[in-house]
């Protein structure tokens, strides 16, 4: 029954001399929720940014929904259409209203008629509970609202996979919960998700497996219970003792 969504085989990447991804092997099935954690500079953001080609991998294969990522721009476009992404800094388009932020790509990439794209945008904005802010500009919203708008923008493309790159790290503490609630709701709805985060409460609640990365390698990948109760590697133990 499990359908393979993302496959990474022997993926390597270098930034100059720095070996940021070192032999990454990963298989993610439909509906799985993966949480990636690790110290800063461990390559976790780079890993998920390779999945939608914001970064180029230099060796190995990345296959998303049967399409291999190559330099062919059509493969990149096809994969980006299936993969939504939420950034640490939200990266909303400041010159467009929240509604236009959400309907831009459906109109220009999916070729939806304007009215339909806006209806759909409103629907998703309602789901993240900021439909009353639809006509404001990003700068007029709080951080938590902006991040929820960014999630809605990604969802409007109806992706089959969602990538989250430290979605709550730039938020004030009292706004983290509202964003995590949206993400939990999404997870319960069956979305395939890869989340880079240090929110261990979130990881415990929704993750099917937690990956710990260090120095470009996957050190440990386990279900949450084993990950927190019986970490094998010393590095994982040290990391957990520092953040818990």
């Amino acid at each position, binding site marked *: 029954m499990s359908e393979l969504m993302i496959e990474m085989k022997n993926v390597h990447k270098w930034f100059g001399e720095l070996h940021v991804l070192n032999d990454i092997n990963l298989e993610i099935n439909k509906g799985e929720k993966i949480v990636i954690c690790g110290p800063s500079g461990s390559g976790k953001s780079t890993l998920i940014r390779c999945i939608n080609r914001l970064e180029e991998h230099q060796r190995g294969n990345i296959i998303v929904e049967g399409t291999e990522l190559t330099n062919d721009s059509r493969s990149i476009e096809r994969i980006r259409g299936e993969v939504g992404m939420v950034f640490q800094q939200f990266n909303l388009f400041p010159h467009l209203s929240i509604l236009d932020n959400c309907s831009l790509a459906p109109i220009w990439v999916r070729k939806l008629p304007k009215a339909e794209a806006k209806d759909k945008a409103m629907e998703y904005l309602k789901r993240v509970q900021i439909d009353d802010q639809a006509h404001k500009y990003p700068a007029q919203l709080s951080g938590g609202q902006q991040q929820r708008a960014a999630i809605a923008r990604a969802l409007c*493309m109806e992706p089959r996979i969602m990538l989250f790159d430290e979605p709550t790290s730039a938020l004030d503490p009292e706004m983290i919960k509202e964003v995590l609630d949206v993400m939990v709701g999404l997870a319960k709805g069956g979305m395939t998700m890869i989340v880079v985060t240090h929110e261990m409460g979130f990881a415990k609640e929704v993750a099917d497996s937690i990956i710990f990365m260090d120095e470009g390698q996957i050190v440990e990948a386990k279900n949450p219970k084993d990950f927190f109760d019986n970490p094998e590697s010393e590095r994982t133990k040290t990391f957990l003792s520092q953040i818990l």
Partner: protein
Amino acid sequence: MSAINKEVGPPVIELGTMGWLRKNLFSNWYNSLLTVFGLYLLYILIPPLVNWILLDANFVGSTREDCTNEGACWIFIQQNIKLIFYGLYPTEELWRINLVYLILLISGVYLLVPNLKYKGWVGAFLLVIFPIICVIMLSGGLGLEAVETRLWGGLFLTLVIAGVGIVLSLPIGVMLALGRRSKLPVVSILCTIFIEIWRGVPLITVLFMASNMFPLFMPEGVNFDKLIRALIGVMFFSAAYLAEVVRGGLQAMPKGQYEASQAVGLTYWRMMALVILPQSLKMVIPAIIGSFIAIFKDTTLVLVIGLFDFLGIIQFVGTNPDWLGFSHEGYVFAAAVFWVFCYAMSWYSQRLEKKLDTGR
């Protein structure tokens, strides 16, 4: 201990006219001195100027003999107004220029009034159909008598050169800026060379080349209109400057905007047109308008290749034996007209910046 310092006392009141004066003009002894000196300068400059331009000036008459008052002789401008505004364009065909002005004025005002419908169509008309109308109306065709460009002149010629330069140089400049930042080395190098060559040469040299050197390279019998050559020169010259202005705006864009556009699947051109350029052009509006104003004023240089623009023709009519000795009036008038156009652009840019501000 919170003791009140009696020696310093409470702050001097800064409200009302007196408060404003004290705060801005007489806050200490050297500001007071500068204020007094400034007032004195105004006193010795303004009254004579007003007298010369208005109170003692001559407005009615038809020859230089009618200028009996001590002030400016505006009759000089009045009598030569056709030359100054239209050059040697045939008098019976002037309606063609005026009609073009009228179309431009009406559509321009329409675009400036807020909340009107069909603005997109009017804009498209101005960008696509209006230029065709201009070419046919101004140079002839479709049953209209041909008017050679050597007869074009005055303010009309200035507006043609500046208008074409401004309208065409922006898109070319944007393409050059994108090209220079391209990841394809060939495109990037070619754009860089193109930009640096045009920026490295004075406009006057460009105009000389266009007017004198260019024909030497053309085969015998091929004759390019001199005005068109000058237009192309002005256009590329200002495009090169605009390219660097636009590139500055592109470089100020946060990387996240590129990444977010790519992540939602926008292709390169859509990302640029919908996300990156609207923001980066907005950031450099003041510099872009600065370039436009520079083009407008630089059109005066076409005099060196024998085209009589607004300023050129004013100097020219000043050499008419009937009107010798009135160059002051000519220059003051030229300055006033240039100021009106340049200030209008400046005003529009401020308005645009306010309108596009979304609070970032």
